[in-house]
């Protein structure tokens, strides 16, 4: 495998392999930006990997009052799953338990799409018959009486099957603290790209996985090739000076948004990485046979 060097950081000639997914967007508003963010954070919590969490969820961006249907501050969240059907129970539970319950909240569609799915299908029945709908133009809003007034929730939300899950960057370093700092900066740069989320804690995964396991019943296990403590014992992908590897996983509503996000992350790593001990950037793939979307690092270089 040949590699390129940019600003002292080696860029592997490899690619990230990502999968087609279904994605939806919601706009959560509240009386203050703080409470919109609290609701959005709780609603997207425990949404790191579709394998164990049912959906991959995250915050796309904060919205100013002029961008929301009710003129209050808001947050746009994105949810990704294997299919629209797989998103149904996730949407019901997350909105029902985390948005409906949050003081002053309202929940609207956050993705224009021809295909729609029910958003208020479950939560509106919390109204026990007192719920009413108001259709304005093409949008129907349900009003559910709650103890601090009314919970407003839009009837349907857009869902796309063109979404992509699993865009990624693997960042290798010879200094753990510096590597984390540089990776955080890359996550911050990716956060500025619209229509994408980085669903893992703080946008960063330290436990990259490979498919399969020696144990029956485990469908994934540690990516030993990138484990620095095993570099002498296994066929390693680490460099001799690698102390730690961090991964950024990216889900986006479109393939282009994932590529843009990877480009933004890569640019930041190249700009500030070497000084912080980043030595290499690689990407995770399964040989190219599993995922429909391939993002070659060499095509994403600044």
């Amino acid at each position, binding site marked *: 495998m040949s590699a390129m060097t940019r600003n002292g950081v080696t860029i592997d000639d490899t690619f990230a392999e990502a999968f087609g997914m279904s994605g939806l967007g919601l706009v959560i508003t509240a009386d203050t930006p703080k409470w919109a963010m609290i609701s959005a954070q709780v609603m997207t919590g425990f949404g790191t990997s579709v394998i164990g969490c049912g959906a991959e969820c995250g915050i796309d961006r904060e919205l100013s009052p002029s961008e929301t249907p*009710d003129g209050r501050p808001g947050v746009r969240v994105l949810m990704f799953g294997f299919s629209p059907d797989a998103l149904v129970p996730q949407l019901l539970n997350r909105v029902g338990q985390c948005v409906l319950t949050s003081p002053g909240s309202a929940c609207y569609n956050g993705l224009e799409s021809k295909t729609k799915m029910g958003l208020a299908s479950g939560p509106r029945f919390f109204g026990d018959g*007192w719920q009413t709908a108001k259709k304005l*133009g093409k949008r129907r809003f349900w009003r559910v009486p709650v103890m601090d007034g009314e919970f407003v929730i839009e009837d349907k939300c857009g869902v796309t099957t063109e979404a992509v899950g699993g865009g990624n960057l693997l960042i290798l370093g010879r200094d753990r603290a510096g590597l984390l700092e540089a990776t955080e900066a890359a996550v911050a740069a990716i956060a500025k790209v619209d229509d994408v989320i980085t669903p893992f804690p703080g946008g960063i995964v330290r436990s990259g996985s490979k498919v399969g396991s020696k144990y029956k019943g485990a469908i994934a296990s540690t990516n030993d090739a990138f484990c620095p403590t095993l570099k002498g014992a296994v066929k390693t992908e680490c460099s001799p000076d690698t102390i730690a590897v961090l991964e950024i996983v990216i889900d986006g509503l479109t393939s282009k948004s994932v590529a843009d996000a990877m480009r933004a992350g890569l640019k930041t790593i190249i700009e500030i990485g070497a000084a912080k001990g980043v030595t290499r950037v690689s990407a995770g793939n399964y040989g190219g046979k599993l995922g429909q979307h391939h993002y070659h690092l060499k095509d994403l270089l600044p």
Partner: protein
Amino acid sequence: MSTLSFTLLSAPKQAVNLSALIPSKLAGLSNGAIEQIVLGDGAHAPRVGDLFTVSGTPGDEIAISGASPLLDYVGAGLDAGTITVEGNVGNHAGRGMKGGKIVIAGDAGSYLASTATGGLVHVKGSAGDFLGGTRPGDRFGLLGGTVVVEGNIGQRAGERMRRGMVVTRGKFGPAAGSRMVGGTLWTEAGFGPRPGPLLRRGTLIGPSVDELLPTFADCGRIDPVILRILSRYVAETLGALAPKALPPMVRKLAGDRATIGKGEILLTA
């Protein structure tokens, strides 16, 4: 954008059905052919040419000059395009319209926009009774779209209305929102006596009510988020025609409790 103009030659002697004069029905016709169109039914139904001079070319816009309360069904069934009327019109204007826009510079008669499902009707004068209402045989009145009236509105506006919005700068007459099933009536001047008889669902917004039915329950002052959504929606869709944004707090009267009572009168003052 081409305009087809109809100029009234003299006041008609009998009610005339103008539902044939909408852009989609006139597309591709010559002015001569348009003059031959029979307006309505019956042995004495006039042709367009008997009542109007036709000029211009068929396109997205139709302009009707001249006013008569006998010009019925103006823009009925309109699906796209714009119809402007210089003066007053008769009954049933915009009935069953699906889209497009009707601008009436004068007054409109009864049953304006009954059974309409979309589009915008803008009346610069006043409107008659049963605006967005039902005629015998109709299941519902207004089903969608928006009606803006700058003057007053007659009695029983929104009779069995299901969706859509009626906005007036003036007042609604007696029994506005009677038997209404959904949608929004919004006045900047207030409601006449006894609004909302047998109101099932739907929202009546205004500063005052002349006389309240005893079957409405006072829910006190509230500040629901839907007020903000309504204000923003009308500002975005109606622009200069939009009513003033709603105050943060309104007084809610729930009713009509003589029926399921999930409707509301929201008092803004």
